[in-house]
Structures are given as C-alpha cells and as structure tokens.
C-alpha cells in the first residue's frame, strides 16, 4: 500500500477529532485523546503493524523539531512577561519541574515499575519534544515518554481548574505558572481560557520547565541512584 495512505489517514482523523471537539466541547473529546485512540483502534482492527503505519505517518514526526525551534518565536514575543515576573516564574517553574522529576521517579519506584519505564516517566512534565529528547539521553523509552507526556496533558486539563479553585489561585501569575509547569501546551490552552496574560505566563513557565527538566533530569536520576 502507498506509504502516503497512513499519512493521509492520520491527518484526516486529526482534523475530524478537532472538528468533533469544536462542535461538542466535551473534555473527554479532546483531540489529544481521540486522535491516537482512533488510530490505534484502526491499526488493531486492520492488523496493520506499527512499522508499516510509521513508514507513511512517520513523516509527521520530522516536523517535531521545527515546531520545537519555533518556541523561540514565542519566547521572543513574550520576553516582557518573563522580565516582569522572572522571580515568580523561575521559582515556581523551577520547584515544579524538580518536583515533577522527583515525584515521578519516587512514585514509579514505589509502584515497582521497571527501571527503563521509571526513566521514561522522569521528564514527563516538559513539553513533548524536550521530554522525548531527555528520555533518550537517560535511557528511557521515547514512545513511553511521548505517551506519558500526553497523559500528563490530559490530567492537566482535568485537574488544573479544580486545583486552581481549591488553592484559591486568583492571579494570572499563579494560575499561569501552575498550568504551564504541570501540563505543558495542554496547560497553556487551559490558561488561555482564563485570559491572555495567564496564557503568556503559562507559556514562559512551560519553557522554563523544559530547560530545567533538560538540565536537571540526568543528575537527579544519578542522585536518586
């Protein structure tokens, strides 16, 4: 079968999932969940192997890196927000990123997960391209990290607003840091539902989380033995 077939199927499912979410607006219909779920179901039902699927659809993976580099444009546009709130965002995102690595590894060990799965979960709070890069660096399984990061985004959508309410977070700074640090781009989309300022703070928090995760994961893992 033509390799482009699975590329086309993937894009079609993605576009349909986005439309579905726009029309119904239910959180469990987020394209984050629906797109991979539908494609996995199609592969399992048709008996097509992942290798075969990836020959065509894998072209999409080549756009991950340019998309990551594009974050520089976001950083450039939001640099004033960073300058104004640097201490709060650095402290919040820094402590958040470190606690993400420590608690992921700690809980994974508590639950007796395999070592390479534990390493795959360590960078899951960073934005997916950085998380996957770090995972490769520390001996994790990139696919497991990609999925763990996706699940992190889903929990961010689900738990973000209730936790914001429970902690009585009323400022854009606190809300943005909470959402961007814990749930990367999914958190940013939630932050934008409050207002643009919260979205900018979340964007900067996500970027700092990515950098801290990149710098700190290898030595936290070696520190924890």
């Amino acid at each position: 079968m033509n390799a482009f077939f699975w590329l086309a199927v993937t894009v079609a499912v993605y576009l349909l999932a986005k439309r579905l979410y726009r029309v119904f607006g239910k959180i469990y219909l987020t394209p984050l969940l629906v797109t991979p779920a539908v494609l996995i179901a199609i592969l399992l039902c048709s008996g097509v192997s992942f290798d075969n699927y990836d020959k065509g659809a894998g072209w999409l993976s080549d756009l991950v890196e340019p998309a990551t580099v594009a974050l520089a444009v976001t950083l450039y546009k939001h640099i004033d927000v960073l300058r104004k709130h640097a201490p709060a965002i650095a402290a919040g995102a820094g402590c958040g990123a470190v606690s993400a690595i420590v608690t992921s590894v700690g809980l994974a060990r508590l639950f007796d997960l395999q070592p390479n799965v534990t390493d795959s979960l360590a960078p899951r709070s960073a934005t997916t391209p950085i998380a996957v890069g770090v995972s490769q660096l520390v001996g994790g399984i990139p696919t497991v990290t990609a999925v763990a990061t996706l699940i992190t985004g889903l929990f961010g959508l689900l738990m973000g607003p209730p936790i914001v309410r429970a902690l009585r977070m009323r400022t854009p700074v606190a809300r943005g840091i909470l959402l961007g640090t814990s749930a990367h781009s999914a958190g940013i989309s939630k932050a934008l539902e409050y207002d643009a300022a919260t979205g900018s703070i979340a964007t900067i928090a996500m970027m700092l989380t990515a950098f801290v995760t990149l710098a700190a994961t290898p030595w936290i893992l070696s520190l924890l033995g």
Partner: protein
Amino acid sequence: MLNMRQALHWGKTAAQIALLVAFAKAADLLVAWLHAPVPGSVAGIALLFALLKLRILRLEWVELGAKWLLAEMLLFFVPAAVGIVDYGSLIAASGWRIVLTIAASTAIVMIVSGWVGGRVAAGRERKMQG
C-alpha cells in the same frame, strides 16, 4: 474558493515553515559537528532567539510559520503516541500504575509550582508597595 489574500497568507506560511525546517536541520548539523551535549532542538531555540534579538532575522519572516507549527504540534506527535500499540504487554502489566504515577505527580507539581510562584509574586508585590 481561495481568494488572493488567503493564497498569499498560505504561501507565506508554507515558505516560513520551510525556513524553520531548514533552520532546525542546520542546528542539528551544527550540534553534531561541535559534539555539543544538547539536543539540536534546544540549540535551535537558542540560535533562533539570538538571531531575532540581534535583528538579523525579522519576526515577520518566521511568525506565521511558527504559529502554524505550534498550533498543530499535537499532530506531529500522533505517530509517536500510536507507537504504544507495540507495548501491549507493558500496558497490561503496569498500565494503571503508570497512569496513577502520572496523575499523582501532576497534582503535586500543580500544588508546588502554583504555591511557590504565587508566594514569590505576592512577596514582590508587597515589597513594591511597602
């Protein structure tokens, strides 16, 4: 039907995406050539930011392409996420423990980052007023 303005918009977006793809590739090659211990994408972010800051690259040259790439980021990760079909035995053996780890850790990260960030911001606010 596409009108002239839309066609121009999409043409520009496509050209800027191509520019960012080439830029990312160049950053990769540079990192490999220098044996630098950072992922190519991080070097790419730093380089692109520096070029924008130094006004060697203008924001208008990359803004539309960057916006599209970031808006559709999820699509580019779909193949990686679908790759989990090859990990059926891992999911069967430890799926719920993995999900529980992620849920609990995410909640902790929210509480820590929101609380610390909020406290530091409030402290600075008081100092500025005081």
